[in-house]
């Protein structure tokens, strides 16, 4: 409401930023750098689900994800995600991202997961800018 707009960096995006061997890496890195510029200009806040940042703990505070704030996952979030995963058939990590984005009112996601395209979210990169060799999910 009174914070700058938040952009949630979803797990697939975090992974693509970090892992240079992934096909999405260069696009993710370029987009991330642009988001970082906007963060520095105080135009937006970068957030990620805390459990999705856990694998990068050593680079969260003083590393490549230094500008990214954590959305801390509580028991209630896990329970809601579990219910969503069971009822909606979503993978648990995806369901958790959905719960956190909804509970924290984050309408913008940086992700390479196509599943989010079915929801009214502002996605980055948008469908048009995803290269043809981007990972597909069945």
């Amino acid at each position, binding site marked *: 409401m009174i914070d700058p707009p938040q952009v949630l960096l979803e797990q697939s995006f975090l992974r693509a930023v970090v892992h240079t*061997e992934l096909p999405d890496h260069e696009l993710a890195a*370029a987009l991330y750098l642009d988001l970082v510029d906007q963060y520095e200009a105080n135009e937006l806040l970068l957030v990620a689900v805390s459990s999705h940042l856990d694998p990068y703990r050593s680079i969260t505070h003083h590393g*490549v994800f*230094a500008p990214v704030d954590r959305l801390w996952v509580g028991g209630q979030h896990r329970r809601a995600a579990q219910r969503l995963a069971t009822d909606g058939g979503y993978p648990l990590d995806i369901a958790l991202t959905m719960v956190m984005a909804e509970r924290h009112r984050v309408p913008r996601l940086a992700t390479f997961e196509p599943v989010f395209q079915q929801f009214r979210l502002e996605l980055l990169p948008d469908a048009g800018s995803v290269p043809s060799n981007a990972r597909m999910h069945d």
Partner: protein
Amino acid sequence: MSITAEAPSFGPADTRPSLTHVVPYDEFRVVRLTLMFEFLVVYLWWLRVMGLPIDRISVAISVAIFLVCAFIGRSARTWGVLLLDCVAYCVMWLGYERTRGAADDGISVLGLFRLKFPLQVESMRDIDRAMFFGHDPNVVLQNRFLERSVRWYDVVASATYMTHFVLPIIVMAVLWVISRRQWVRFMKRFATLLAVGCLLFVLLPTAPPWMAADRFELFPELQRGAGRGFRHLGFSGFVNDYNVALSNGNAVAAMPSLHASFALIVPLFFFEWIRRRWVKVVLLLFPVTMLAALVYLGEHWVIDGLVGWAITVGGFAFWNQMEQRTRAKRARTARALVGQAAAPHFLVEQPVTEQSESVSA
């Protein structure tokens, strides 16, 4: 980087379902909103019947009840963070009260001697007189406006004066609920103001105008009636005696005026969200009214308020700069490390495999 990404653009909104329609509803949200509304009703009832809570403990209790209403059903971690915030909040106020109360007795240095600075009685008055061409603003305002009966401007002055005890606290409580990030930003500026204020209370103990008139007889006695207009409205101040000497009132803590500072810090904090200039001007009328009220009521010299404003603005400038630096530092770090982050020593993550990546929808 071989790929030049297009400027990030977000897709347009459409008719697809929002996450709200898919994600299980947070049942506690209704509970929180209901409780906060009930708190508001009870607070207004209390204000009308018992009076405006103005002693620190009553204010703290009312804030605590509000926060419990606002945080019911939140995660244990959120409660933990809230608890730490509350401790920091209490430490800040206790530090303020202790320092402020000690200022007129001087500060004991390692128990060896007492550092006590001379009481300023005439200096602030002289500055005021220099600014107002030889007139005493307090005396001029009271001679011109103060009457036996309560006039509308007495009500305005008194009500404005009383907002000091609740307005910043209400802002803190609301920010606490809406955005902890903004709460932290507000508290940095607020705590800086209190700290610098306390330092000046010690270094520059200053007799307020009513004391200069009453005890030092610098000019004819000033009427002191900050609550007059407030009582005229049918309200009173609620002060409970907790038998705890928390509020070590210090009569010579006039410089700087925290009344004036608090009245400025609130509108100033919200300026960045206000686009229209006239709204900003209207908001700035509040601290101006506060300073006029303080002078009219004989509580402060004009210079006390101006110094209070200067500290407030200085605090904002300092923290704005610090926050910008922090953002720039983090951004620099991220820029420098993008593309290098996959080096093994950076990660504790398991190696990525195609299987672990692929997720079925």
